[in-house]
């Protein structure tokens, strides 16, 4: 028996509804993540202009993408958005687990306050404690992380075939690599 010529009465509206739901959840999650990134801009601007600008750009991009999701976006844009968010998530994990020397010293580790230069002093006189560049996990950034993970999951739901496999394989590789690095002690 063949179904050729028979209209698919049920599956199509369900698929459409599901796609709409993915877009809606992704939009809300993007809004949430974008707003959180903008909320923390003043704090990061105080640390570094470059980092502050990064948070502004990221927050605005996420809000813009949340709005753009009202329309059906082409697959390459969706893949790009997913990959970009995976990059942001990887950056988040790195800043919370690796002592990156170019990042500011966070409060509570050694000297949180930038001192005035001391006349006659050569070099940096302020101790920099091991791991003091690692940011602690806060409730706001944890919420943002979850929102971004939801965004990627929803985008995966909007994709199919090779593009979906590409994104999910990338996610698997990133996650497995992080766990492996933790296992060998390269992540704290």
């Amino acid at each position, binding site marked *: 028996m063949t179904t050729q010529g028979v209209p698919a009465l049920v599956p199509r509206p369900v698929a459409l509804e599901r796609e709409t739901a993915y877009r809606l959840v992704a939009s809300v999650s993007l809004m949430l993540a974008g707003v959180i990134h903008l909320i923390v801009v003043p704090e990061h601007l105080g640390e570094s202009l470059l980092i502050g600008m990064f948070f502004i750009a990221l927050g605005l991009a996420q809000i813009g993408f949340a709005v753009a999701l009202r329309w059906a976006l082409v697959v390459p844009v969706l893949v790009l958005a997913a990959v970009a968010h995976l990059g942001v998530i990887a950056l*988040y994990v790195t800043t919370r*687990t690796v002592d990156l020397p170019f990042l500011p010293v966070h409060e509570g580790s050694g000297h949180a*306050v930038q001192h*005035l230069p*001391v006349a006659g002093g050569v070099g940096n006189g302020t101790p920099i404690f091991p791991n003091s560049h690692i940011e602690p996990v806060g409730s706001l950034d944890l919420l943002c992380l979850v929102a971004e993970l939801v965004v990627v*999951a929803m985008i995966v739901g909007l994709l*199919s075939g090779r593009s979906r496999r590409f994104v999910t394989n990338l996610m698997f590789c990133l996650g497995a690599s*992080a766990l492996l690095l933790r296992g060998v002690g390269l992540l704290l």
Partner: protein
Amino acid sequence: MDLTRRDLFKMSVLSGAAVALPLERSVSGLSLLSSRIAECALPAPYSTPFSTPPVIAPVYSDANADYFHVEMAPTSMEIIPGLRTEVWTYNGTLPGPTFRVNQGRQAVVRQVNNLPSTHPVLNYTPWTSVHLHGSASLPQYDGYASDLTNPGEYKDYHFPNWQPARTLWYHDHGVHHTAENVFMGLAGMYQLLDPLEQSLHIPHGEYDVPLIVSDKMFNADGSLLFTNNDSSGFYGDVILVNGRPWPAMKVKRRKYRFRILNASISRSYKWSLSTGDKMAVIGTDAGLVPAPQYVQSFRQGVAERYEVVIDFSKYKPGQRVLLRNTSPKNNINFTNTDKVMAFDVVGDSFSTANNAVPASLNPGQPTMALKEADAVTTRRFDFARVNGQWKINGKTWDDVVASHYTATLASPNIDDVEIWELRNLSGGWHHPVHIHFIDFKILSRNGAPPMPHERGAKDVVFLGENETVRLLIKFGGGRGKYMIHCHNLVHEDHDMMGQFEIVDPSQAAPDPLSSGPYGLPEGPIDESA
């Protein structure tokens, strides 16, 4: 399109890692302490022999002064048996060599900074400023925090030694990293002798013993482990006496005088003997007390010095007497931080000379002779933590730097007597407060008389939790800008330090930043001061 189980699995690998790894690190805390040496790898308390630091000899002397040469440099030594530890020392010993100088003879000490250009772990430039704690030094030789000697430079310090006999100590005071430099080992004792103290039949010579107490923490490889507990202080799990962990000292059946210096970064102690016997406190920071005070236990904050006579004559040979620490509150304690050292009584013969504690030691002590009625004013100083920074009256050392070193917390006139009221309105921490240059008398502690062991002239006062301490101070003997700060060195570095100025309308004071340093190689010593 539906998400398949395979999709969900792949996504959950990333999601799990992204959420769990940062959280795991946060929950386990700063992983600094994960490298701490296991307790079982530390020596058992009282298994290490006791020793004292060497006494430094002058490189030459003239009619008025003795000249000393001291080099600050990295040194590798065995503190934990079987492990090497890199420390920074004065002349290669931990603690630094002991100075023994006579009243009336100046000491000129060349301090050469041969430390590395950056700290091997904490990555800071170890500039130094050597403070002789307890000395009425001129401002430019007082170890002013911003008077820096960088690696590759040296400075000649002039110490007047006109004050009454006392136990002083020298240590680094370089701004921003005093705690770290002292933790690395830059501290030593300095004993000032005078005819009165030498004439008393209290223990002298081999029976006059320095006990320089500090606490350290080590990594498993023997290297030092420093953590400042969110800027509240450093608290190590190993108690060192004269650089040895929990040592055991052989003592003869007679009286010994111990000069106890708390050279820790943050830890305060409360001493007692395992026998419950009393100790005679014969000296405080600024020398002999008017009369000995007999106490079963007493509290000692960072940088305080107490001279204590313990009488071992009542104990049998073979008996072990322990010096214990029942910690004041708000220290972080570990398994063996209640132990300090042991005294093993031996039956060897001994000299019976200078084996007494006279009922009167220094009845005319000038600071203790001051009267409250002599005070011309009362000033109040509040020690508090504000937005993570430690402050005095809302100010920090950065405010002093920003003012180009003109801002002061007080400007008493020379020879005035004042009451300084120090307040700690917190129950969460205590502050050992040090006032440079002057000696003071403690008038009261929360309205009550000072504790028995504090009834002598001092330069550090333990400002306990929710305490108000009133001090009587005569601003005599010199002029200029001097520091006042918390001697919990982590608090000091973060930035509980200010300055006061003793004003003399008739004579300008030297600038604290007016002398040296000079670049290596070394030139002729400065004999001009």
